[in-house]
Each structure stands twice: as structure tokens, then as C-alpha cells.
């Protein structure tokens, strides 16, 4: 969704966006966390805010890697993040196996991989650590996670009105 030329609006200090695409292998969840941390650092998040956002992103990316692609089928994960009007929106996309029963998947403690000692808490944590969570998924096509959270300290003065 990154276009070719953002307007000059995009250069207002408060606005930023990035898209990070990487291969679905264990270890790259750390890359995703670092990128999100670097993106929101200029907005002076509290340590807890930063930790919670990194955790939510880590959950979504880990799921894409281990459930979406089952860690070995290969594929790419895309992490998009936008900060606009003091709100961080994060989208995590995979083209993996998808989720057949979304309501069940989002239940606390539900996991299809008890063999991997998964806790089934990923979606619950994303929900609790972010303000909003949307999950879209089609079996065999992939999964898209959209989550957003208002950042505590809004540096764009236009937000104070």
C-alpha cells in the first residue's frame, strides 16, 4: 500500500510509515521488533508502551512464521507500520496456510500446536496490548493482522487541539 510519492503532508513531523518484508524464519521476529521500536522511538514512548507494542508485533510475526508457514515451508512476512495523528497502525501479512476457524483461534489458550508448547495466548496478548485488533484470514491464502494503538505522548502539536 506504499504508494510512489507521499504528499508533503507525509513529511509533517508527526507522520511516518515503513514496510518491512523478510523471510519467514525463526529469528526474524527480533528483526520485526527492532524495526517497530526504531519507528516509534521518536515519539518518546514509555518503556511499558514500547514493550507492549513490541510484544504484540512479536506475537503476530511469530504466528506468521510458525503457524502460517510452519517455519519450514518458506515464504515472506510483511510488516507495515504507520504513525498518523499519534496512532500507530501495524499490519502483519503472510501468504501461508490461513486460519479456518477464526473465533476458535482467537480464544485464550486455544492452540493447534501444543506439541511446540505454544500457549494459545498470542491473540489474547495482541488484543490486550493494542487498542484494536482485526484478523482476516483465508485458508491456503494467508492471514492479515491489523492492530492499532494510540501512542501516549503525541508530539505533533496539531494533535493538541
Amino acid at each position, binding site marked *: 500500500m506504499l504508494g510512489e510519492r507521499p504528499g508533503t503532508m507525509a513529511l509533517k513531523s508527526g507522520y511516518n510509515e515503513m514496510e518491512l518484508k523478510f523471510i519467514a524464519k525463526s529469528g526474524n521476529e527480533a528483526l520485526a521488533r527492532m524495526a517497530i521500536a526504531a519507528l516509534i522511538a521518536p515519539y518518546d514512548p514509555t518503556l511499558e508502551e514500547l514493550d*507492549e507494542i513490541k*510484544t504484540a508485533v512479536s506475537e503476530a510475526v511469530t504466528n506468521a512464521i510458525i503457524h502460517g508457514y510452519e517455519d519450514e515451508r518458506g515464504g515472506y512476512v510483511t510488516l507495515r507500520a504507520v504513525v498518523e495523528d499519534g496512532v500507530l497502525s501495524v499490519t502483519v501479512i503472510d501468504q501461508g496456510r490461513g486460519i479456518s476457524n477464526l473465533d476458535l483461534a482467537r480464544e485464550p489458550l486455544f492452540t493447534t500446536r501444543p506439541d511446540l508448547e505454544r500457549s494459545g495466548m498470542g491473540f*489474547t496478548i495482541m488484543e490486550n*496490548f493494542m487498542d484494536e485488533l482485526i484478523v482476516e484470514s483465508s485458508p491456503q491464502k494467508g492471514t492479515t493482522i491489523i492492530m492499532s494503538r494510540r501512542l501516549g505522548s503525541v508530539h505533533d502539536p496539531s494533535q493538541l487541539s
Partner: protein
Amino acid sequence: MALSIMSERHGRVMVSRLVGEFDQQSAVLVRDTLEQAILVESIDHLVLNLSGLTFMDSTGIGVLLGRYKQITQRGGRIVVCGLSPTIARLFELSGLSKIMIIAPSEEDALQVLGVA
């Protein structure tokens, strides 16, 4: 490696300090190290000091729950300490705080187990 574990024995109690990032990539290391201590070295109780963790997500919850089951099956206990606010919230949300003993410090944890 993004995570390291330093362990020391106090008799039948093992204290393990986790330092770094506890995520999907480091999960195997934590599982194997603690499983070895519980099943092979036959420790009774485990103190997990998490104060050196700079990150932990639900992967860690699953791994800790697995060890909790193993050690309680043998009549032992796990005491965790050094939780950051965000890790404490993970414990709350997952219900781990309802089954595991959480101590403010390593010293307190050892006291709970009757060591030190």
C-alpha cells in the same frame, strides 16, 4: 545467541537467570536447559530469575508452563522473580500468576523454598 541462561545449584534447588530475549528462537534453549535439570539432574525446585530479560512474549509462557507441569508432577515447585511490568502482565493474562509463586527478588524466592 539472543538469550543466555546462567544456573547455580543450592542443594536440591536450582536458580536459573535468563538474560536477553525470550522468544520463539530462544525457546528451545530454555526448554532443553531446564528440562535437563528437572528430568536428568533431578532438582527438586526451580527459581527462575527473569530480571535480565529484555523481552518475552507468549512463547515464554508456553515454555514456562511446560516446565511447571514437569516439576509439579515430581512434587517440586517453581518460584519466579524479577518480572518487568510487561512480563507481569503476560503472567496475569495467561493465568500463570495464579499457579506459579511470584517473588519480588531471588532472595525472597529462595526463602519461599526454605533455602538461604
